[in-house]
């Protein structure tokens, strides 16, 4: 099944801007391609990615078929407090994957 890779620094200073990198395995089938017999291959994409920091949404991305297979998203957030960063990808055909990462803020 879908496998997600997340890069979050385990420790940070309060107020520091940290970079978060996420990668998830998914074909991101565009819905514009045809098979060798001419049938249209139905769309199957991740439509939404949301990141929350201790329950508060800090980043959201709406994806379209123009995002390459295995969506890779890099963004940043301010390290405010120790806690949990939660990542949620949702998409076509009931696709839903959740991941979390812990961060310690000194």
């Amino acid at each position: 099944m879908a496998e997600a890779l997340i890069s979050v620094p385990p420790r940070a200073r309060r107020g520091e801007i940290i970079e978060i990198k996420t990668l998830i395995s998914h074909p991101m089938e565009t819905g514009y391609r045809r098979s060798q017999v001419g049938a249209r291959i139905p769309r199957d994409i991740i439509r939404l990615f949301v990141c929350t920091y201790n329950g508060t949404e800090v980043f959201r991305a709406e994806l379209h078929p123009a995002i390459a297979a295995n969506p890779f998203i890099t963004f940043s957030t301010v390290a405010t407090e120790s806690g949990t960063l939660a990542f949620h990808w949702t998409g076509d055909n009931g696709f839903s994957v959740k991941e979390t990462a812990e961060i310690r803020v000194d």
Partner: protein
Amino acid sequence: MHRTSRRDFLRAATGLAVLVTVRPAGATPATMQDAIRAVVGTARVTKGRVKLELPPLSENGNAVPLTVLVESAMTDAEHVRAIHVFTEKNPQPDVVGVRLGPRAGRARVSTRIRLADTQTVIAIAELSDGSFWSGEAAVVVTLAACLEET
């Protein structure tokens, strides 16, 4: 029997080359303009503050690295609310739309996109004061995405 002389052939070929190269420059397809209107509404979009980092030449349109950067202090009073990316020649103009805020610290987002053709990619940023800013980058794509069969 009429045979095309070398001179005639060259003359015709030159004419053809001129026909191929003279295209309306800077004309962006209507579908992309519609997609941009759907996001900004009637607001004015000013050029500047938004920077796209894209390779000028891409051998594989299936995964082109893209970074969008917006000049902003990212404070509670002044920050970037959203960034939208559009293409003019993909089957559909929308690429990605992100929402962020002062907690992002800086307005910088990276991903990998598909490009169906050599074209211009446009990013539009919505700021907390309600203004819209845009930036663009041109990419030459040698192998287009979306065309190959499985």
